[in-house]
C-alpha cells in the first residue's frame, strides 16, 4: 500500500445559516486555506474530489458551480460523490494508490438552511414504501435510540453524558456551532423532542464547508514535518430497509474497523460522526474503543453537523491532532444514511 497522508485541513466556521453567501462563496475560504497551509495552488494538485448534494440547497448541479472556486482551468482531473466528503477522500485515496498522482484536494460542503433538513433527508429512503410516509431524520434516530434502551444496552443518562461532554469539549473548538457547559442532570431535565431523544441528544443543523489536501510519500514529508498517514481506510453499507437491520449495533462500522485495522494499535483519539448521542455509544462499541481513547475532543457532530462535510471534518480533526503531536494514532469515522446505514473508518498515524 502506498503511503498517503493528510497534510492540510481547513474548515469554515460552522453556522446555523450562512445566508449572505452562495455555496461557492462559502466554500472558497476552506479550499484556499487548505492549499495555502501547504504553500500549494490548484496547479500542484493531481486530482480533486468533492462531496455534496443538490437536495440540501435545492440547487441543480450545485457541485459544478462550486468547482469554480477551485479554478478548474485548464480542465482538471475531478470527481464528485453525492455523499459526505469523507467518501470523496476515499476515492482520492484510491486514486493516489494507483500511483499516477501524488496530491489530491478533497472538499465537502452543505448549505442545509434553505430547506427543511429533516424532510429533505426523507428523500434518501425507499421511494415507494418509505418516502411517501415522510419519516423525519430525528424520528428515525429515535427508533434506533429506543431499540438501544429497550435492549438494555444504554440508558438515557448515558445519552445525556455524551451530550454534555461533547458541547463542553466544543468550547475549545473555535469552529463549533453549539458549545455550552451544562450538567447531565440539566440535560435530562429537558423535554423530549422525539422520545426518547431530547433536543440536546441531536446535532444542530449546520451550514459549512471543509477541505483536505492529501499527498503521497515524500511529497507529504516535504510539505509538513509530521504528516498524518492513512494506515487503513474502509467503508461498508447496510440495507436501506431499517427492518432488515439490528439497529442496536453497527455491523458495517465493525467490519470497516476490522478492515482498516483499528485494533492493530492503541487509539489515542477517535472522532466519530454521530449526529445523535445514542449513535456515539453504538459506534464506540462497534469500533472497540476503550477508556484509553479520547472521543470527539472537537465536540463532534453534536457541536456542528454540516451535511456532506461533518465526516470529512472528523478526518481533519484527527489529522490535526496527529500533526500537532497531541496524538500518535487515531480513528476517524464518517456516516451516511438513516440510523448509521453506511460507515467509513479511517486509521491515521504519525511517523515516529
Amino acid at each position, binding site marked *: 500500500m502506498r503511503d498517503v497522508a493528510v497534510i492540510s485541513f481547513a474548515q469554515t466556521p460552522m453556522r446555523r445559516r450562512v445566508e*449572505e453567501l*452562495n455555496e*461557492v462563496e462559502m466554500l472558497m475560504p476552506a479550499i484556499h486555506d487548505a492549499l495555502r497551509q501547504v504553500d500549494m495552488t490548484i496547479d500542484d494538485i493531481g486530482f480533486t474530489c468533492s462531496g455534496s448534494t443538490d437536495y440540501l440547497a435545492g440547487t441543480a448541479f450545485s457541485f459544478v*458551480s462550486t468547482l*469554480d*472556486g477551485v479554478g478548474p*482551468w485548464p480542465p482538471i482531473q475531478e470527481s464528485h460523490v453525492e455523499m459526505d466528503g469523507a467518501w470523496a477522500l476515499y476515492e482520492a485515496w484510491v486514486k493516489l494508490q494507483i500511483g499516477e498522482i501524488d496530491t489530491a484536494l478533497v472538499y465537502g460542503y452543505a448549505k442545509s438552511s434553505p430547506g427543511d433538513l429533516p424532510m429533505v433527508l426523507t428523500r434518501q429512503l425507499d421511494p415507494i414504501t418509505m418516502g411517501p410516509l415522510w419519516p423525519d431524520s430525528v424520528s428515525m434516530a429515535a427508533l434506533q435510540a429506543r431499540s438501544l434502551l429497550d435492549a438494555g444496552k444504554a440508558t438515557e443518562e448515558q445519552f445525556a453524558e455524551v451530550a454534555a461532554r461533547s458541547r463542553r469539549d466544543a468550547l475549545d473548538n473555535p469552529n463549533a456551532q453549539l458549545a455550552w457547559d451544562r450538567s447531565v442532570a440539566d440535560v435530562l431535565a429537558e423535554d423530549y423532542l422525539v422520545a426518547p431523544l431530547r433536543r440536546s441528544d441531536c446535532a444542530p443543523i449546520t451550514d459549512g464547508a471543509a477541505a483536505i489536501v492529501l499527498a503521497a510519500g515524500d511529497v507529504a514529508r516535504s510539505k509538513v514535518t509530521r504528516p498524518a498517514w492513512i494506515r487503513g481506510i474502509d467503508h461498508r453499507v447496510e440495507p436501506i430497509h431499517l427492518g432488515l437491520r439490528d439497529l442496536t449495533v453497527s455491523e458495517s462500522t465493525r467490519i470497516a474497523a476490522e478492515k482498516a485495522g483499528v485494533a492493530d494499535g492503541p487509539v489515542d483519539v477517535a472522532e466519530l460522526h454521530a449526529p445523535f448521542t445514542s449513535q456515539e455509544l453504538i459506534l464506540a462499541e462497534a469500533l472497540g474503543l476503550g477508556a484509553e481513547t479520547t472521543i470527539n475532543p472537537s465536540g463532534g457532530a453534536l457541536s456542528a453537523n454540516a451535511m456532506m462535510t461533518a465526516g470529512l471534518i472528523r478526518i481533519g480533526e484527527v489529522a490535526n491532532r496527529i500533526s500537532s503531536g497531541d496524538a500518535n494514532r487515531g480513528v476517524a469515522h464518517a456516516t451516511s444514511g438513516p440510523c448509521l446505514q453506511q460507515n467509513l473508518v479511517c486509521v491515521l498515524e504519525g511517523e515516529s
Partner: protein
Amino acid sequence: MADARQITLPASLRGVEPVRSVRTPAQLDYEFTAGDANTRFLRGITQKRIIGQKAPGGRVYVPPRGADPELGQPTPIEVEVAQVGTVTSFCVVNLQFYGSVMEIPYVSALILLDGADLSVMHLIQEIPADQVRIGMRVEAVWRDDEDLEPTMESIKWFRPTGEPDDVDVRIPGEDHGTGLGSWPGGVAPTEALIRNPRTGEGGER
C-alpha cells in the same frame, strides 16, 4: 434484465392485476438566497445598471457567480458593462414549453455585452425570428421603472440597435487559447494549446 414474464408469482398474486404505477407526490420548499455576488449584481439591475465582477487580473463576468473559474478566486471588483452587445449565438424556439408564456417562434440568444467576457442569455424581440443572426448588435429593453425588481426579467428582452453587424465577433472563451470553436490549423485542442491563466503557461495563440 430478467424477463418479468418468467417470474413465478406466489399463488396469492396470480391473476391479480400488477401495480403499474404509484403516485407518491413529493414537494420540498426552499428559501433560496442569492449570495454576495448575485446580490450585488441584482441590486444593479434594480437601478437599470448591468454590473459585472472580476477578480484582480481576471475577466469580467456577467452575470457573476461569485468565483472566477479560471483563477478560482472571488470577484470583488465591480465593472459596469454596456447595455448593448453582440449576438454570439442564438436558437429559434418552435416548441411551447411548459410554463412558457412566449409566443412561438421566439429567439433565445447568447449576447456578449460590450465590456464583458461572458455572454448573457436572453430573448431577442422586435425583429422577425428568421432575421436574427450572429454578429447582430442588440440593446437591452427594460421594464418600466416602477416594475424593476432584482431579477433578470427586469430586462424584458434585447432588440436590434440598427448598428452594422460585428462580423468579427468572437465566441467568449475562444481567446482562452482553447481553440474552442476553432481548431488551430485544423488540429484538435490539446493541453499544450490551453493557456493556464494562473501561470501563463501553454496556449499557442
